[in-house]
């Protein structure tokens, strides 16, 4: 009895182990494949960022004497320090982040609401309205720039404002108008967020909303407590994309915002400073004690400081994403939605 059982056990164990070996090798091959491609492409991506960093961290007198593509000959924080002072970094960073955060939240909120209507409510003309969403994704902002500028300069709602104030409203030069654009879904790439979220809503089974209704939840309760948590991955994606694009946007801010805000947004500062690096360093020297010697004549040094500026400007985005990407996984593990 016992031997028979043992033999039987043995053969199953053998078969199992052969299966396990095969599975293990397949998994290992898959892992090697995955890591090879990720590391190769990752290397390509990280190169320009690292080179920018390297140029910033290299000691200024040693710029251009590098004999290695990866290791700086000597390091110093001088370029970064100058970049920090030229950008007025803490002030600029605080303003940029707060300003961008407001814009990203407004855009996400507007898109989350509008997209739900587009996904779930069918009414006359809803497809035409949705076509407008697609249009707003496709039309490059430059092509309606002139008309947009003029309509912002003389903003009016069917002649109503002119009737009340005697003249149309000038929306140019105020921070409010940028927020207004974001809140009405027409900010930077506003159409895309609506589209992404609409597709995510449509990917949910209608039955969960029906179940919530049967259980006595009203429309708003269903939306905020049932529907929104289910699309949290997409909501997060949309808000991250919106943050990145608003943070680096130069078009709307330079078109609409006032001078004060323009001088604080890091993306604008960066593009502004690149043309006048020489004078920026010179200007900085005049503000510093004479013992601190700066060099502004050499174009290599100008480029080094510029690299440091560029690195400082994009660094917050990378740090932000590092913290946000962990949430990507949590958001989904929490939701226990099955296919039906």
């Amino acid at each position, binding site marked *: 009895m016992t031997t028979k059982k043992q033999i039987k056990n043995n053969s199953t164990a053998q078969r199992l182990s052969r299966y396990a070996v095969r599975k293990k090798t397949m998994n290992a091959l898959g892992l090697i494949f*995955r890591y090879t491609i990720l590391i190769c492409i990752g290397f*390509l*991506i990280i190169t*320009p960022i690292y080179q920018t960093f390297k140029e910033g961290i290299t000691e200024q007198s040693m710029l251009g004497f590098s004999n290695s593509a990866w290791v700086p000959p000597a390091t110093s924080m001088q370029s970064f320090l100058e970049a920090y002072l030229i950008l007025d970094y803490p002030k600029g960073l605080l303003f940029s982040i707060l300003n961008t955060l407001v814009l990203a939240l407004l855009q996400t909120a507007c898109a989350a609401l509008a997209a*739900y*209507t587009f996904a779930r409510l069918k009414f006359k003309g809803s497809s035409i309205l949705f076509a407008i969403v697609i249009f707003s994704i496709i039309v490059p902002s430059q092509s309606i720039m002139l008309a947009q500028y003029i309509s912002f300069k003389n903003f009016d709602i069917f002649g109503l404002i002119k009737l009340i104030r005697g003249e149309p409203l000038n929306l140019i030069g105020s921070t409010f108008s940028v927020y207004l654009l974001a809140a009405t879904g027409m900010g930077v790439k*506003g159409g895309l967020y609506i589209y992404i979220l609409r597709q995510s809503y449509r990917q949910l089974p209608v039955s969960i909303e029906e179940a919530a209704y049967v259980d006595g939840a009203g429309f708003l309760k269903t939306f905020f407590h049932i529907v929104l948590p289910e699309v949290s991955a997409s909501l997060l994606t949309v808000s991250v994309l919106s943050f990145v694009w608003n943070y680096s946007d130069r078009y709307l801010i330079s078109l609409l915002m006032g001078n004060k805000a323009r001088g604080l947004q890091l993306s604008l500062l960066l593009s502004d400073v690149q043309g006048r690096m020489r004078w920026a360093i010179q200007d900085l020297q005049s503000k510093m004690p004479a013992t601190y010697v700066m060099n502004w004549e050499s174009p290599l040094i100008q480029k080094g400081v510029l690299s440091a500026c560029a690195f400082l400007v994009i660094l917050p985005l990378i740090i932000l*994403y590092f913290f946000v990407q962990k949430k990507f996984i949590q958001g989904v593990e929490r939701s226990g*939605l099955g296919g039906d």
Partner: protein
Amino acid sequence: MKDNTKAVKKGWYARLSYPKKRGLWGFIFLVPWLIGAIFFFMVPLVQTFYYSLFQMDLKLGGFDYTFIRLDNFINALTVNTDFNTYVLEALKDFAINVPIQIFVSLFVAMLLNGEYKGRGFFRVIFFIPIILATGITDVKLATYTVAKQGSQNFVNVDFLIQVFTTSGIPQSAMSTILQTVTNIFSVITKAGVQMIIFLAGLQSISPQLYEVAKMEGCTKFEVFCKITLPMISPMILVCMVYSIADSFAGATITTLINQTTFTNGNYGLGAAMSGLYFVVTVGVTLICTFIVSKVVFYYDN
């Protein structure tokens, strides 16, 4: 009595039927977007078409408008030597770039998704292309071009050319593939957004579906075709529209339009060019969306 007064106090909202409440809230949800769409998008858009019918000359404090009917359009299509060529070029770029971008981004997103060591690290790295693509680092950093050259040297093209010339693949297809491989850096840079959209899509596929497939003994390929692809298909549509918009917005013709409008000050002609280009772009997008949406899977239908 008490109950009765309460019912009266509840008022008109409580008496609405559920579909009507849904309709009401749906409309309220749409209002912010509707305001923006009308005043900040449709009005300027119509205005742009309106400008294209005029000869516009700058004068102090505004423009001088002279009505010239369709002359600007005729001018763009027949007189201007560059316009047609550039439109064709944009169409060619679109036909090549969009499928490549979608393929590459879906492929990379699937590699990034899943359980493996260093996942967070790789996700952060593959997020960088989105930052680079926004143009925030478009300050003339030589390092950026160095990286581009580096990626070209990184992939040994001579070897590839040899492989492909002996494999019997048609010349044109081969040059497309080679271009993709040598420009892998810019392909990845442009595919960053699609990658993150796909990643979110992959994340929201229920793990239960995969479990069931595993229990039923599906191979990995079957799982991809029968679960991943249908579940991700709505996002393919989004990514396609985004890729198309991106491809057309980045074409050389936009420089021509900008030059005509702002450098040469020919606002009417610029508006006409924008309008024509817009019609081409919308046409292409609608055709592609129509075709792809036939195979997209939604839960709700």
